[in-house]
């Protein structure tokens, strides 16, 4: 090793009767062009009548692991052909490494062997999903039981931790909630004004913004923001506690993770979501106000009066009610994914991702269900 010459790597087969010698020469290091091991093993497989293969490496000037890869491939190909390979001619270092790489046969896992057909795969997948549902119902059942414990006052949530959660899910989420809802109000008003101007009905932009905001958008947008912001955070926090065995430690002290980790988070979000929704309504209407006053021919007073006419208290409370449900969905999805997180770092990321996806999916589904129900009962 250590030669400066960069002579081309090459191979040569010398076959004498029943024994073959593979002569390698030149520089065998990573990044330098060299004969392909695939061609060499194909060559070995194609020769017939040979019973013994040995290697001649005397002409090699420099080598690293890539030479071992080549030798190993040739070795495997020869063994497959029933050819005995003699490694005794190899330099000691290379021989030892090759022997080491052959010492433990490659682990063939049981699953890799069985090539499942389509029906088996569908069946297994279905079982897996059902198992997941099972886990979720266990979680839900435990949650309901422990909800009772909280009401009775047996669960032990530290006030300081709870206040911290309230701050985290409430106050610190307010700026982004306000910004995004303000912009949404602005956009709706903008589209509305352009359309309504055609009928000289600019004033009704207040109805449009007011109703869309209070009944639908404030709750949904706040829910989606909280899913991305807080739901993911819950899943990641609880998930990394799971990885770190902190959840196990809680359990060995007889503290239910449900009471200590899940309940405070669910209650915090359940309390803060309606408040955030109130702010979301306010900022969305403000966004509409800005557009109405600046682009349309409406005065501020007119906009406010029209808003008061258009939006009833029941519209407002309907949105608030929805936001509570969305808050519950976000918190439950985050905590459920966190508690069911695997035991390595990658699964914390997965838990956070699936918490967000689950929460947003269920928010949209719940919203659709509400739309139908409210239509039927006529609110």
């Amino acid at each position, binding site marked *: 090793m250590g030669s400066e010459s960069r002579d081309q790597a090459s191979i040569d087969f010398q076959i004498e009767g029943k024994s073959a010698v593979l002569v390698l020469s030149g520089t065998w290091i990573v990044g330098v062009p060299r004969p392909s091991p695939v061609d060499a093993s194909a060559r070995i497989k194609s020769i017939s009548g040979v019973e013994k293969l040995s290697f001649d490496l005397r002409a090699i000037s420099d080598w690293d692991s890539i030479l071992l890869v080549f030798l190993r491939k040739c070795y495997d190909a020869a063994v497959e052909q029933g050819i005995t390979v003699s490694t005794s001619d190899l330099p000691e270092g290379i021989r030892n490494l090759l022997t080491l790489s052959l010492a433990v046969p490659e682990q063939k896992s049981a699953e890799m062997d069985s090539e499942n057909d389509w029906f088996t795969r569908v069946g297994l997948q279905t079982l897996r999903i059902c198992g997941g549902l099972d886990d979720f119902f266990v979680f839900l059942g435990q949650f309901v039981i422990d909800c009772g414990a909280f009401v009775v006052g047996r669960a*032990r949530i530290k006030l300081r*931790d709870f206040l911290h959660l309230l701050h985290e899910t409430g106050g610190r989420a307010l700026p982004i909630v306000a910004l995004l809802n303000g912009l949404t109000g602005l956009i709706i008003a903008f589209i509305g004004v352009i359309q309504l101007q055609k009928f000289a009905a600019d004033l009704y932009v207040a109805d449009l913004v007011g109703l869309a905001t209070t009944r639908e958008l404030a709750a949904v947008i706040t829910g989606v923001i909280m899913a991305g912001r807080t739901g993911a955070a819950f899943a990641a926090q609880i998930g990394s*506690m799971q990885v*770190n*065995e*902190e959840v*196990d*430690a*809680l*359990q*060995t*002290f*007889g*503290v239910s993770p449900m009471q200590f980790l899940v309940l405070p988070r669910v209650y915090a979000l359940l309390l803060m979501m309606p408040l955030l929704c109130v702010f979301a309504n306010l900022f969305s209407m403000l966004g509409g106000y800005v557009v109405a006053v600046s682009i349309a021919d409406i005065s501020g007073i007119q906009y406010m009066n029209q808003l008061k006419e258009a939006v009833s208290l029941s519209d407002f409370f309907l949105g608030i009610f929805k936001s509570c449900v969305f808050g519950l969905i976000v918190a439950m999805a985050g905590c459920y994914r966190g508690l069911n997180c695997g035991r390595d770092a990658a699964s914390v990321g997965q838990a956070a991702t699936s918490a967000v996806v689950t929460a947003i999916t269920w928010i949209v589904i719940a919203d659709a269900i509400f739309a139908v129900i409210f239509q039927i009962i006529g609110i």
Partner: protein
Amino acid sequence: MSMNQEPKIAVRDLTMAYGDFVVMRNLDFEIKKGEIQVIMGGSGCGKSTLLKHLVGLVVSHSGEIFYDGKRFAPDASDFDSISRQFGVLFQAGALWSSMTLQENVAFPLEQYTDLPAREIAELVDLKLSLVGLAGFGHRFPSELSGGMRKRAGLARAMALDPEVLFFDEPSAGLDPLSSVRLDDLILELRDALGATVVVVTHELASIFSIADRALYLDVETKTALCNEDPKALLDDPSTDPKVIEFLTRGAASDKT
């Protein structure tokens, strides 16, 4: 303290499995009060899993575990009262990262006792000083080294003066001196508190210095091969060669 001869912990025909995958089967052993029981074996043999069964974190596939003759399982009525006697030191300490050391150690005391805050604080200071962490109470776990976290975890495990202490790989990640000190601490705790100690480890030095008995879990046969004093095991001709090989780092098999 009663003088009955009943073992502190009795494991009867325990089989551990994850789904269909059997980790260990037919485990049957007893641990006497005040003994230090080591659970040893190669990597991945199920040592930590056995510990999780013993503390009730995992439900056994079949078989039973008894503490003082009382059946221990999550559905048993005594589950809470039995698990209250436990102190567990997890592999990486498993301190609650949102709490300071002081709060970590105080947590079990607040959970289970009605002591006034002042007494809890005094007890916490005492426990922290026992593991050499006096004055670190206001630090968060992230501000400590791995060894300090482990010692803090021990302080938390000792908070309620447990009757049974469990250690999961206590010397993993510790330098040789710290690991010897931890071994000494384990011996002192046993002598002072009369606690029963269960240690999962494959650190030979600590096996020989602390173990009264060592249970060897074998990956291949998926069961325990022996449960004796490790020093006696070496001299006993009937000891399974695998155990001898394990206890001598393979030196015994090289000679033959």
